[in-house]
């Protein structure tokens, strides 16, 4: 069972590495957009500090969204999805392996880069800590919710646009708690509640999203 899990993770990583240009696009998008804002807003340091958490969270969220359409697309087209569904291993196992591998290559780099970009906004040092912490806690929820959307759009023309319409409203709570946690920390307010909510949301998504995702994948294979 563990070796099967690792086999799926390894395959995803090898594929991610060999098509790394795709991931670089999303990462470059994050860096560029986050860099553009200080130029646009001007040198009002107080304002920049205030908007930094929200802007970095929104750009990270959009960068995650960019990587989602390809999550199942290839597996669905080349028949791998059929073979995964027919394998004797429990379906949540390979799905978890796929999503974990995807999160590690698509979201973790964002969390690691975010503090560097935050320097452009002249932020307080607590923000440099809180940004990666909240992104680590919150982005798994984005990947999980996004996976349901990515499974639903299989076989749909202009699916990427539809995916954005489907999942962006669901990303709103994650954004609110993520950005607000960073902002509260900036003002010296307690953040334990925010972090607990982010972690709780991620756990709830981990419990619920795979079932929706698998149901959508089965539907995609049927047609």
């Amino acid at each position: 069972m563990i070796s099967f899990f690792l086999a799926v993770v390894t395959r995803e990583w090898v594929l991610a590495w060999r098509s790394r240009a795709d991931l670089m696009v999303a990462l470059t998008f994050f860096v560029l957009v986050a860099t553009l804002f200080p130029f646009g807003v001007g040198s009002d340091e107080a304002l920049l500090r205030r908007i930094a958490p929200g802007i970095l969270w929104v750009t990270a969220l959009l960068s995650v969204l960019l990587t989602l359409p390809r999550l199942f697309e290839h597996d669905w087209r080349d028949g791998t999805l059929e073979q995964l569904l027919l394998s004797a291993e429990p379906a949540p196992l390979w799905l978890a392996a796929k999503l974990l591998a995807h999160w590690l290559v698509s979201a973790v780099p964002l969390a690691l880069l975010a503090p560097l970009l935050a320097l452009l906004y002249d932020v307080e040092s607590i923000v440099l800590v809180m940004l990666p912490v909240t992104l680590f806690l919150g982005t798994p929820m984005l990947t999980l919710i996004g996976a349901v959307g990515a499974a639903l759009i299989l076989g749909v023309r202009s699916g990427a646009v539809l995916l954005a319409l489907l999942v962006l409203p669901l990303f709103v709570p994650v954004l609110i708690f993520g950005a607000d946690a960073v902002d509260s920390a900036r003002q010296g307010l307690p953040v334990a509640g925010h972090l607990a909510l982010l972690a709780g949301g991620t756990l709830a998504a981990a419990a619920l999203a795979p079932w929706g995702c698998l149901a959508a994948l089965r539907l995609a294979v049927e047609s």
Partner: protein
Amino acid sequence: MALLEWDRLACRRGQRLLFHDLSATFSGGEIIRIAGPNGVGKSTLLSAVAGLAPLEAGTIRFQGRAITDADDAWRAALLYLGHSLAAHELLTPRENLRFLVTLLGQRPALAAIDAALAEVGLAAQRRLPLRLLSAGQRRRVGLARLFFASERPVWLLDEPLTALDQSFVGILTARIEAHARKGGVVLLTTHQEAPFATPPRTLDLTLFRPQQERAA
């Protein structure tokens, strides 16, 4: 006892009923060719039998027991090769085959993988990404899985002979016949003549079309 029984199967695709009242029994050692023109529902039938698509009606029995949704025992008894062979173009034949065999629940040594690739004529290409190989060579990678599936009694092969050269068609039919000799059931679809030693039993799907379409 029949290994596999179909009792009044019917399949629908969208609004259209493809076939109905399809009953048949298959015993170990049989090779069955599912015949009929394009669009008659051959692929739909195979994927429904595999449990990937819903049946409109009917029951499938394996070793006398009706199979259910998400039937682990049935999935473990079955090898399904869809029209797409589940090989990724960015992976090498070796990586692809290793993953596909893992999905069969096995953990073969690299030597066994390489031996199977040599068997399908890809010994020299085993480290090249699939995108550098020809269409026929890519299909060989997916078909190499057959060399690891002798423990699975029921093989469902959708167009296994497409895009293959004559010599490999020979290798493949020999592999299929060997599986049948060992007591397996092989159901396949093909539009080309396969050089089986004895002609396979043919199941003509057009006979099970809905009445109004049969006249047309």
